[in-house]
């Protein structure tokens, strides 16, 4: 067994899992955070995307032991107790998701982009989502949703300044 101390969505969690447990399995089965999904288990579809120390990774390709002492953000940690993240709000308003299975991965990949580049072009958004597959939507409204979220954040920052 491997002892893991991991901060998930701001909360410190201490647990023990067999070494062959992936970070995805740890989140879904041990910590009951089922937002990250198992789509292919090979790092091809991006449905398992989470942020580890702020960096977007495929949770299915990381062993739980490799996430020891790290900070992990899952989709469940994006909305705080007061409000949605602008990405979640924009996606809801525009109807960006259909079946929703790709949603958590896509939203976190978009967050990874926006955190580093608050003013991306449509091309930048496409490239940032290159590791996330969606079979329902054709990506159009997803890209619109990310763009709308960026505008929302920019507007809020202007107000704050």
């Amino acid at each position, binding site marked *: 067994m491997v002892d893991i101390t991991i901060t998930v969505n701001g909360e410190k969690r201490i647990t023990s899992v067999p070494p*062959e447990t992936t970070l995805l399995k740890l989140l*879904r089965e041990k910590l009951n955070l*089922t*937002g*990250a*999904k*198992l*789509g*292919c*288990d*090979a790092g091809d*579809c991006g*449905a398992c995307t989470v942020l580890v120390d702020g960096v977007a990774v495929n949770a299915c390709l990381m062993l739980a032991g490799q996430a020891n002492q790290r900070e992990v953000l*899952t*989709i*469940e940690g*994006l*909305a*705080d*107790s*007061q409000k*949605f993240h602008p*990405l*979640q*709000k924009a*996606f*809801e*308003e525009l*109807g*960006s*998701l*259909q*079946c*929703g*299975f*790709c*949603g*958590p991965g896509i*939203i976190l990949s978009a967050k990874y982009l926006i955190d580093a580049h608050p003013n991306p072009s449509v091309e930048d958004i496409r490239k940032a989502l290159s590791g996330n*597959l*969606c*079979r*329902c939507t054709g990506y159009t409204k997803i890209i619109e949703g990310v763009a709308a979220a960026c505008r929302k954040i920019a507007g809020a920052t202007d107000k704050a300044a």
Partner: protein
Amino acid sequence: MDDKARVGERKTAPKSLPATDEALRLPAVTKKAMFPLETITAKPREQTPSVGQRATRHDGRLHGLGQTKYIDDMSFPGMIHAKIKRAGVAHARIKSIDVSEAERMPGVMATLVGKEIPVNRFGPTYQDQPLLADDIVRHAGDGVAAVAAVTEQQALDALEKIRVEYQPLAPIFDPLEAMHEDAPKVHMGHSNIYSSKTVNKGDVEKGFADSDYTFEGTFSTQMVEQASLEPHAAIAEWDPNERVTLHSSLGRITLGRADLARVLVMPINRIRIVATVVGGNFGGKNEITHEPILALLAKKTGRPVKGVYSREDEFISSTTRHPFIMKYKTGMSKEGKIMARTVRLICDGGAYCSWSDTTLSKACILSAGPYNIDNLRVEACAVYTNKTMTGAMRGFGAPQVCFAYESHMDDMAKELGIDPLEIRLINAFREGSLSPTGQVLESVVIKDSLLMATERFGWKEWKK
């Protein structure tokens, strides 16, 4: 105790109960974020128009929060996991299956083979598909045995220990070859051609005789996998009254219950299917796949049993879109009017019928295209091959023939030197046109749509 005392008597009047959670003392845990959806309620007797209203998807909020629960996100007390062993050979007779070593593996609670299934055949049109192959394997993704174990890895380890002895049979992969008399037969004794449809309208011989030109073209499309992001998943559980509940990604509940009733030989009113939020279907989840297997494993073990397809299973063991070979022959007047058309459709029907019959019907009717054709003959057939079964996928036969008849139209327009838009306007359905099967069509707006669309995307500018 005094036998005469009234047991329900109140000593004092009840205090009024609080109406909201205001009276709840400080929560013991941090308040979870709650995001209730606001609902707009109309005033009584107020007529609210719906067309033109902006509406948000009712599931959009949960999706964004990552709170939507799909089957694999669900867990029941005592739940165990099932995995299915895939044949890995395209065509073979099963000589023997030995599950004894698998059953002794740690964590394994039960195994299942085809022979144990009460009625091991199902299908929407022909019941030709086994849940688990019992005598003949007809495609490499055919399941041959299943295991239920405490963990998924234990189930996978046990699959490796199942010994199946195969006698290889000659496989057939090409649908055109499969149509020959002496081709290997996918289903013993029966011709590989398992469904035929024809459409006959008018007199094609006369139509061709009256044509100034005749054009031919052959078009083919490939097998496509729906690849919905959520794999097939289901959880089966029995209650003490011998009723089974299946939480499943299945898209058709009533059909599923009927199939389960037939396969498990039990009354339909003892079968409950809970169709949950699904992560994409596109036709691939239109029929049962592993539900009866999970139900039987749940019966054997007395535990809820969950089965989730791997991505590999999705590609090799779940239904796909039919490859079609389409041969078109069209007689045209020199003005560009279609005088006659014959179509030959060969549908690669995979190892089992599944939705091929329905797909073939649809393809047959639509193969002429939305054009006025007085003289038409369509001959279509579905052919067994030793490949993954072909079933329902978005369009049900329409996408394939649309590719063919529109490409054919463009080819003919080029040959005749007629504008591709013009040739379609000449031939398109009008109000009151007859469909290939003689239906009188109403509310026909093809010409208006074509003109409006070509105006909008700049056809005039583009074709210069």
